[in-house]
C-alpha cells in the first residue's frame, strides 16, 4: 500500500525546538561514544565534532500533517555544516517538509519524505542544515 499525501504540505514548518544550552559534558560524552579525536586538555578550546548536530532532537519524527503512515524508516541524512558548536551554545531547530517523492524498488512503491532541519545558535548563526530522508508507506 502506498502513502497518500498532499503535496501542499511541502514547505510547511512542523517542528520548532530551542534546546537547553550545550554542555561540555555532553560534547565529551559524544566524543567518547563516537571515538572522535582526543579532546583538548583546556576546556575553553572544546569544540563539538561536526556530527554532534545529530543529537539535536525534534518533537515530531514525521510531519503530523502527513496523515497515517503504516511503515517508515530513516533512509539517510545529508548534512551541510556551518559554524562550530561550543559549550554554552543554545541551539534552535526549525524543521520543514522539504520534498516528497516516490520511487519503485524491489519491494514496491515507496514514498520518501525529506524533512529539512535548519539549526542555528543563539547568535542566529547557521550551525547545520540536515536533510533527512524518511521512507514511508
Amino acid at each position, binding site marked *: 500500500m502506498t502513502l497518500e499525501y498532499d503535496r501542499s504540505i511541502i514547505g510547511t514548518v512542523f517542528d520548532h525546538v530551542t534546546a537547553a544550552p550545550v554542555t561540555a559534558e555532553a560534547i565529551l560524552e559524544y566524543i567518547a561514544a563516537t571515538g572522535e579525536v582526543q579532546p583538548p586538555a583546556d576546556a575553553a578550546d572544546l569544540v563539538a565534532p561536526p556530527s554532534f548536530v545529530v543529537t539535536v532532537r525534534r518533537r515530531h519524527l514525521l510531519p503530523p500533517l502527513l496523515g497515517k503512515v503504516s511503515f517508515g524508516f530513516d533512509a539517510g541524512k545529508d548534512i551541510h555544516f556551518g559554524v562550530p558548536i561550543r559549550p554554552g551554545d543554545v541551539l534552535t531547530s526549525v524543521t520543514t517538509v522539504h520534498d516528497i*517523492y*516516490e*520511487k*519503485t*524498488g*524491489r519491494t514496491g*512503491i515507496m514514498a*520518501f519524505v525529506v524533512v529539512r532541519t535548519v539549526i542555528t545558535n543563539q547568535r542566529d548563526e547557521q550551525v547545520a542544515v540536515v536533510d533527512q*530522508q524518511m521512507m514511508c508507506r
Partner: protein
Amino acid sequence: MILDLHTHSEASEDSRAPVETYLKWLARKHDVLPLDGIVLTEHRQWEPAKDYRRLEDEYGILILRGAEVETDYGHMLVYGVNEDITRRFDFTDVRLPAQVLITEVARLGGIALPCHPGRPTIGLCEHYERKPPLDGVVAVEALNGGSRRGENEKVERLIQRYGYNAFGGSDSHLVSFIGVCATAFDRQIRSVEDLVAALYQGGYHPVDFRNDVKVST
C-alpha cells in the same frame, strides 16, 4: 567501442558519485576497464542544461545522457531524450505506462529499454508472468552490475524466448562500480543519436569486467 549504458551520479538521490570522480577512476583502471564512454541515466529526471564537454575533453571519455524511468512493467532506460519526450512524459511519475512509453519514445526519436529485467517487482520478467508481453522491445539489459545471484540468469531465458538484443550496464551508484558491466558495439558512437541508431540496428553485446576488477557487493 565499449560504453557503460547504465550509470548514476550524485544527481540521483541514491548516489554520491561525482561524474569527474568516475572519469578519474576509469582513467586509473583503463587496463582492466577499457571503456570509451559512459551514459548517465539518472533516476526519474532529465536536466536539459547539463553539459559535460569540458570533462569529456579533459579525460577523453565520451559522456552521454539518458534517464532511468519507472513504469508498470518495471524500470526502463530512455536514450535520446529530447524536449518532445519530456513534454510527453513526466519522468517523476513512477507509474508510467510501459507500452505507451516504448511506442511514443520510438516515435519521438529515442528508445526505451527495460533494465535489470530479472529483478523482483521492478524487472520485466516478473511482470511478464502476469501481463502480456510488450510490443516494440528492441533489447534488454542482460547484464546489470547490481543484480543479485540469479537475476541475470533469468534474463537469459527471457532473451531466448523473445529474441531481444542484449546489452550491459554497471548500474553504478559508487565510483568503484563504474564500468564493471558494459556494452561492446561494433561501430563508433560519438553522439546520443549514434547510440539510439546503434541500439535499434544491433551489432552489440554485453561485456562483464567483474573478473578483472575486484568488486565488493
